[in-house]
C-alpha cells in the first residue's frame, strides 16, 4: 500500500509542529524519518495514525484521500503503529494484549483461542518466538516490542510505523529488530522508521527523509555519510566525535567497595559493586536500562540509606550521610530523569538554578532570599551555558529539553566539585545540545574532577569514557578500556563476561558495527 502525505500542517497554539509536509511512502520500503527531538516526527506520525487532526493537508492511501477520526480507523485502513512507550497492559498475556480493543467474541464471550492462533501464526511466520500465554510483564523489553509489532500485524497492517523503536534495546536486540524489519519489508509491508540514530538509518533504510523544525528539509540515500545526515538534521555542520585530550588521571577520588542494595521484598538491585574513579578521569557506566545504574547513582547521592558496603570520597564515607551532606562534600549530580528529579517545572529558571543552594550565602540572607543575587547568578549561567530563553523569570517548563538540561548542568557545575555524576546526560537532547553537554563534561574532567557518566547509549559511552564499566543485573560485569568494540560491550551488556564476549564477538559482527564509523563515500544524497 502506498501512503502519501500532501501539505500536512499541524499547529499547537502559535507553534507549528508540522509545516506543509509532503511525503510518499512506497510499498515494501523502509522509509526512515530522521530528525532531532522536537523536529515534529512524532507529531506527523500521530497525524497519520489518527491521534491528531491535521490543520491542513491531506492523507492519501493508494491515491485515495482518507480521513481518520481515531487510531481505530487508521488501523482498519491498514496502518499500524509501535509507540516509543509501549502501549501494553503488563498483567495481560500476549494474546490478551493483541486483541485488546478488537476482542473477537463468540456469543458475547471473548474467544481467546482465536487470539492465540493469530499470535502463533504471526510469530511463526516471522520467527518471533513469542508464546501467546506469557504475561507481558514477564517478557524482556525486546520481546515486548515484538508483541507490539504482532499487534500491529494482527490487524493486517500494510504500513507499520515504528517510533524510536531502538531506544530501549541492546545492540544485539537492535540487530534482531532490524532483521524483523527486513522480513516485513520482503513480505510487502511498508515501514516508517522514526529515529535520530544515524547508524540504524544507514543500516536499514531504503529512503531517508530529514525533518527539521516541522519541515521536510531534504531526502538522502542511505549511502550518505553520517556526518552529512547529522548536518542535515541539525542544519549546520556538527562534529559527531567528542574532541578530547587523553585523560590525566590523578589520585583516586572515589572508592566504592562491595556496595549492595536490596529492596524490602528481598530483590537485589546492587550486588557487591566495587570500582574506583580517579581525579581527572571519566568512568562511563554502560548497560541496558534497569540493570542497577540508577540505583548506583542514587545510592552514592544518599537516597538509599539501607544500602551497605562502602563508598568513600577522598577517604570520607558517603554512606550514611544525608543527601544534603553528600552534596556539601562536593558531589555534583545530574539525575537521569530531569523532569522528575532534576528540575521543578513550575519554578522559574532562576529558582531552578539555586535549588540546592537557596539557603546558603549569598543567595540567602538569614531567612530571606536575596532576589538580586539570585537574578544575577541566573543571568551569568544563562550566558555561560547558552540557555535559550527571553528571561530568567520564565518557568523551566517553558524551555526545550536541551535548555532544561543546560539549566541542570549550570546548577550542578557552578560549585566546586570533587565528584560529578551525570546519568543519561544527553537523553532526549538534539545533536547540538549533545555536543555542548559533552564539552562541559570533558571540561569538568580536565579541571580535575572525578566524573561518572551513566549512559545506555553506546555512542556516548565510547565518546566520553576513559574507562568503561558494564553493569548487568546489579553488578559490574567488567571494567574495560575505552577502545573496547561495540560488539564486546553489547555482549557484556547482555551478561556475558569480558573474555567470553571477546571470543564470541570475534565470530559474529553485528550489523551496526559493520556500518563503519567514517563512511565517506559518494555524496549521493540530495541534501
Amino acid at each position: 500500500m502506498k501512503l502519501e502525505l500532501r501539505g500536512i500542517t499541524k499547529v499547537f497554539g502559535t507553534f507549528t509542529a508540522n509545516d506543509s509536509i509532503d511525503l510518499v511512502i512506497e510499498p515494501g520500503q523502509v522509509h526512515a524519518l530522521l530528525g532531532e527531538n522536537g523536529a515534529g516526527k512524532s507529531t506527523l506520525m500521530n497525524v497519520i495514525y489518527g491521534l491528531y487532526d491535521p490543520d491542513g493537508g491531506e492523507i492519501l492511501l493508494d491515491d485515495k484521500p482518507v480521513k481518520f477520526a481515531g487510531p481505530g480507523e487508521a488501523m482498519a485502513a491498514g496502518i499500524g503503529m509501535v509507540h516509543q512507550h509501549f502501549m501494553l497492559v503488563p498483567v495481560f498475556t500476549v494474546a490478551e494484549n493483541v486483541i485488546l480493543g478488537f476482542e473477537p467474541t463468540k456469543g458475547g464471550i471473548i474467544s481467546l483461542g482465536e487470539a492465540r492462533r493469530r499470535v502463533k501464526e504471526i510469530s511463526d511466520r516471522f520467527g518471533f518466538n513469542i508464546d501467546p500465554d506469557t504475561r507481558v510483564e514477564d517478557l524482556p523489553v525486546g520481546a515486548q516490542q515484538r508483541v507490539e509489532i504482532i499487534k500491529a500485524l494482527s490487524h493486517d497492517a500494510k504500513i507499520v510505523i515504528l517510533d524510536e523503536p531502538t531506544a530501549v534495546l541492546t545492540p544485539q536486540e537492535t540487530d534482531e529488530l532490524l532483521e524483523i524489519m527486513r522480513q516485513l519489508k520482503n513480505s510487502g509491508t511498508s515501514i516508517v522508521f522514526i529515529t535520530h540514530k544515524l547508524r540504524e538509518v544507514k543500516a536499514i533504510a531504503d529512503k531517508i527523509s530529514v525533518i527539521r523544525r516541522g519541515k521536510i528539509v531534504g531526502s538522502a540515500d542511505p549511502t550518505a555519510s553520517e556526518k552529512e545526515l547529522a548536518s542535515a538534521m541539525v542544519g549546520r555542520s556538527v562534529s559527531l566525535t567528542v574532541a578530547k585530550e587523553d585523560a590525566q588521571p590523578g589520585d583516586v577520588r572515589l572508592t566504592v567497595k562491595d556496595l549492595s542494595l536490596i529492596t524490602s521484598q528481598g530483590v537485589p538491585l546492587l550486588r557487591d559493586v566495587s570500582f574506583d574513579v580517579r581525579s581527572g578521569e571519566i568512568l562511563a557506566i554502560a548497560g541496558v536500562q534497569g540493570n542497577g545504574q540508577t540505583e548506583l547513582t542514587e545510592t552514592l547521592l544518599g537516597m538509599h540509606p539501607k544500602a551497605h558496603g562502602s563508598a568513600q570520597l577522598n577517604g570520607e564515607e558517603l554512606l550514611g550521610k544525608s543527601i544534603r551532606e553528600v552534596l556539601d562534600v562536593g558531589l555534583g549530580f545530574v539525575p537521569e530523569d530531569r523532569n522528575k528529579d532534576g528540575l521543578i517545572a513550575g519554578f522559574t529558571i532562576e529558582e531552578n538554578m539555586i535549588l540546592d543552594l537557596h539557603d546558603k550565602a549569598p543567595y540567602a540572607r538569614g531567612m530571606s532570599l536575596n532576589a538580586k543575587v539570585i537574578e544575577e547568578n541566573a543571568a551569568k549561567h544563562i550566558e555561560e551555558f547558552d540557555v535559550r530563553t527571553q528571561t530568567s523569570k520564565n518557568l523551566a517548563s517553558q524551555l526545550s529539553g536541551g535548555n532544561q538540561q543546560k539549566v541542570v548542568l549550570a546548577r550542578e557545575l557552578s560549585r566546586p566539585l570533587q565528584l560529578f555524576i551525570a546519568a543519561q546526560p544527553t537523553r532526549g537532547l538534539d545533536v547540538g545540545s549533545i555536543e555542548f553537554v559533552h564539552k562541559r563534561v570533558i571540561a569538568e574532567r580536565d579541571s580535575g574532577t572525578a566524573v561518572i557518566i551513566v549512559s545506555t547509549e553506546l555512542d556516548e559511552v565510547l565518546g566520553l569514557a576513559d574507562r568503561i564499566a558494564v553493569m548487568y543485573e546489579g553488578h559490574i560485569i567488567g571494567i574495560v578500556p575505552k577502545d573496547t568494540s561495540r560488539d564486546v560491550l553489547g555482549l557484556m551488556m547482555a551478561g556475558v563476561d569480558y573474555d567470553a564476549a571477546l571470543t564470541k564477538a570475534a565470530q559474529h559482527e553485528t550489523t551496526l558495527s559493520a556500518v563503519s564509523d567514517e563512511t565517506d563515500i559518494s555524496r549521493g544524497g540530495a541534501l
Partner: protein
Amino acid sequence: MSVETQKSPQPAPESETSEDRRWNTALRDIVSSNASVIVFAIIAALLMAAVLVAAANAEVQRTAGYIFARPSDFFTAVWDAVSGAYWSLFRGAIYDPEAQSVVRQFKPITETLTAATPLIFAGLGLGIGFRSGLFNIGAQGQVVLGATVSAFIGFAFDLPVGIHLIVAVLGGVLGGALWAGIAGYLKARFGANEVIVTIMLNSISGFLMSYLLTTDAFKREGSNNPVSQRVLDTAMFPQIMGENFRLHAGFLLALIAAYFVWWLMERSTLGFKFRAVGLNSDAARTAGISVNRIYLYVMLVAGGLAGLGGVSQTLGTEGVLQEGVAGSIGFDAITVALLGRSRPVGIIGAALLFGALRAGSPLMQTASNTPVDIVQVVQALVVLLIAAPPLVRAIFRLPAPRKEGAA
C-alpha cells in the same frame, strides 16, 4: 516533542504514591485554575442559585400554575423572588440603606469583615499546605484547638493588659500548630496519609472540646451549659470601630498574617523549600531538601495559622468557648483557599465573599423568606465549578488556555 512525551504513560509507580500523586494533581489543577474562571464560576453559581431561589418561592410556585394563561405574573414573581433575595443579601452583607440609623446602615459591612476574619486565617493555613503538596483538611480541628487553648488562657489566667492578649494568642497558635503537627509528624515519620489523619483529628478535636466544656476548669460555676467562662477583658482583641460594631483587631492581625504568608512563601528560604516540595518533591529531595522535615514544618505553620482562626473567634467575636465556636470555619476555609488559589490576596478576597454570604444570609432569610441553605448551595456550586474549568469555559465561551510547553 514535549506534546507527545506528556501523553506517554509513565510506568506506574508504587500504588500508594500514585494515589498521592493523583490527589496532588487534582489539587494543583484546582489551585492553578485561572482567575477569570473563578470570577465566572462565582457568577454562574449565583445564577444557578437564583433558579433555586425562584423555585422555592411560594409566589413563583403559585403563578407557575397558570403560566400559560398569564406568563407575566410568573416572570414578575420570579424577578421579585430573585431580586428580593439578592437585594436583602446585599443589605445584610454590605450596606443597608433601609436601616434606621447610620450605625445600622454601616454595620453589615463590618459584620462581613468580622465573619471573614477566621476564614482568612484558616484559609491562609490551608493555602500553604496546598502549595506545599499537602491536602490538609484539618483546619477545623486546628481552629478548635486554637479556640480552646486561647480561651482557656483568656479566662484562667490573670495577666496584665497587653501581655495577656499576646500570651493567649500565642497559646492559640501553639495549640493549632501542635494539633496539625500530629498529622505532619505521622506523615513524615510513617508516611500516614494526611487527608485521613486530619479528618480524624477534626472529629477528635470536636469531642475533646465537648469533654473539656464539662470539666470544672472550663465550666462556669453553677452552670451545666456547655459554655466556658467568659474571656477576661485583658485578653480580648480591642474593638477597632467602637462598641457598636463587633469588628475587632483580629481582622488587622489577619491582614498582617496574609502579608507574613506572602513573605514566607515568596521571599523566604523556608517558603522556597515549601514550594519546591509542593511542586516536585522528587527534585526537591534530589537537591538535598529533607522532604519529610518540610512536611512537618508545613503542618506546623498551617496549623498555627488555622489556630489563629479559632483565636479570633474566642478572643474577638464570641468571648467564650462553646460548642459552635468553630462553626464550619475549617471546612469553609478549604473552599476559601481553593477559591483564592492559595495566594494571600486571593484568600482575603474569597474570605470576604464568604464572610459576606454568611453575614447577609440571616437578613435574606427574614426579609425575603429565602432559606439560608441557599448560601451553602452557592458555596458548593462555586467549588464544583472551579473544579471543572472546561465547564465554566463552555458556559461563558471563554477561550481555553494555551497549553504550556506545546512547543
